[in-house]
């Protein structure tokens, strides 16, 4: 057997170590070592903090009771605190100023508003559309540049007691100061969990869209992009909509009934 050099012996030892089950330990050590490399930031951030500290005027290095604002301000809301902090701020303020808010604080939803509102709680999606983290772009087949048929939709979470499901699709931006309906279906069985592409479920009826057609149409003007909102309404009371119904009437009735809804947005550019 030939005599091995130093490096060869080291490698040989490593291979032996593998046999002894040390490789997983080695891998873990390397991984942990890499994680530890992030420690370099500490020194940097501390240096940042220290350099800022040195640029402050001595008057703002207060610490303890004298830095505390009045108890009235403390007990008040965040807005009062921001205002109080601003008023008490010395010339050595570090960082960007925290500006006091302008205007009125937005109100919370009152119990009555909750009762009268439609709650967006239904899971609603389309297996026909590409999966995306934001607004799905409609493939041309579902627009007037293709077959102009509606995509398939699926849903879950229709509340018990729902008497009817209805679907509305409208432009997010009104046209000529009117809501623009692209599609409306009423009379969907509440026990269903979806609708096939271009298929009208048994017992359902289609409304007259804003193009004047009893059906579906996505057809923005050439050179324009539009976003469309789809609302799936779970209605606690049945409607008696007939073929060619007015989608605006359906919407108003859905708002009155204040049931649950599923929301979805899609877009298309021509």
């Amino acid at each position: 057997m030939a005599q091995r050099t130093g490096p060869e012996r080291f490698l040989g030892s490593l291979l032996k170590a593998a046999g002894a089950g040390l490789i997983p330990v080695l891998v873990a050590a390397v991984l942990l070592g890499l994680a530890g490399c992030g420690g370099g930031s500490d020194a940097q951030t501390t240096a940042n903090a220290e350099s800022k500290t040195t640029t402050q005027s001595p008057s703002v290095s207060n610490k303890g009771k004298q830095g505390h604002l009045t108890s009235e301000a403390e007990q008040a809301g965040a807005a009062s605190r921001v205002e109080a902090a601003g008023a008490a701020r010395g010339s050595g303020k570090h960082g960007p100023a925290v500006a006091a808010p302008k205007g009125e604080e937005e109100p919370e939803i009152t119990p009555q508003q909750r009762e009268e509102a439609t709650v967006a709680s239904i899971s609603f999606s389309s297996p026909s559309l590409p999966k995306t983290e934001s607004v799905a772009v409609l493939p041309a087949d579902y627009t007037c540049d293709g077959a102009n048929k509606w995509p398939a939709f699926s849903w879950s979470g229709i509340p018990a007691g729902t008497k009817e499901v209805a679907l509305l699709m409208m432009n997010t931006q009104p046209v000529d100061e009117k809501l623009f309906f692209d599609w409306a279906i009423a009379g969907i069985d509440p026990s269903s969990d979806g609708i096939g592409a271009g298929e009208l479920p048994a017992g359902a009826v289609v409304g007259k869209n804003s193009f004047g057609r009893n059906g579906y149409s996505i057809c923005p003007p050439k050179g324009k992009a539009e976003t469309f909102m789809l609302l799936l309404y779970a209605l606690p009371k049945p409607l008696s909509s007939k073929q060619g119904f007015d989608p605006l009437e359906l919407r108003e009735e859905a708002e009155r009934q204040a049931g649950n809804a599923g929301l979805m947005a899609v877009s298309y550019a021509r």
Partner: protein
Amino acid sequence: MMKRKATRIFLRGFLAALMLSAVLAGAASAAPAWKFNGEELTSPEKVVGAAEKSGLTIPGMTTTCENFLYTIVVSNKSGTGEGSITELPLYNCTTNTKCTVVAIAAEKLPWVANLSTISTKNYIVIKGIKVSILYGGKLCAINGVTAEVTGSAGGWLDNTTESATFSPTTFSTTKTELRMLENTVEWNGFFPTEAFEWHREQALSVS
């Protein structure tokens, strides 16, 4: 034979030492703490902040609030920074559509927050977020609908500007997500911070 045994013992010892040092270094970098004027915070401090023009984008619509205030009680626990968001009033909220914001509020407060270091940058991760929004307007596609935005949010803490920045990039880095049903909600905002109690006007940093 003796030499091989000695080498094996040396290697095991070396690897054990390497692991221990890596664990200690890893723990130090993964657990940043709140500091005022470079000194680690020893008792809870109330920090207030306000963002201007912060926007929540639900699919198809962005809701922007001119002012987005918050109060967070920050503290260090075993050397790791944490926080509790106790207030989040919103001001002058509008949308980029014909919808108006009838009401909007942060709910289920306080929201818990933790600090962490990811790839040398410090982040605040807020969990248990819930914001309810009621939209209105005759020309609003979702008139009379309440939408709930829930989930978690990760923002980058910048010591030089004493601020937290929330963006799709910081959400992705911190593996956090806000959702409205099955839709991802985007939140963009720049939040300057300021101590309100004992450390008023002191430089706030995280390291």
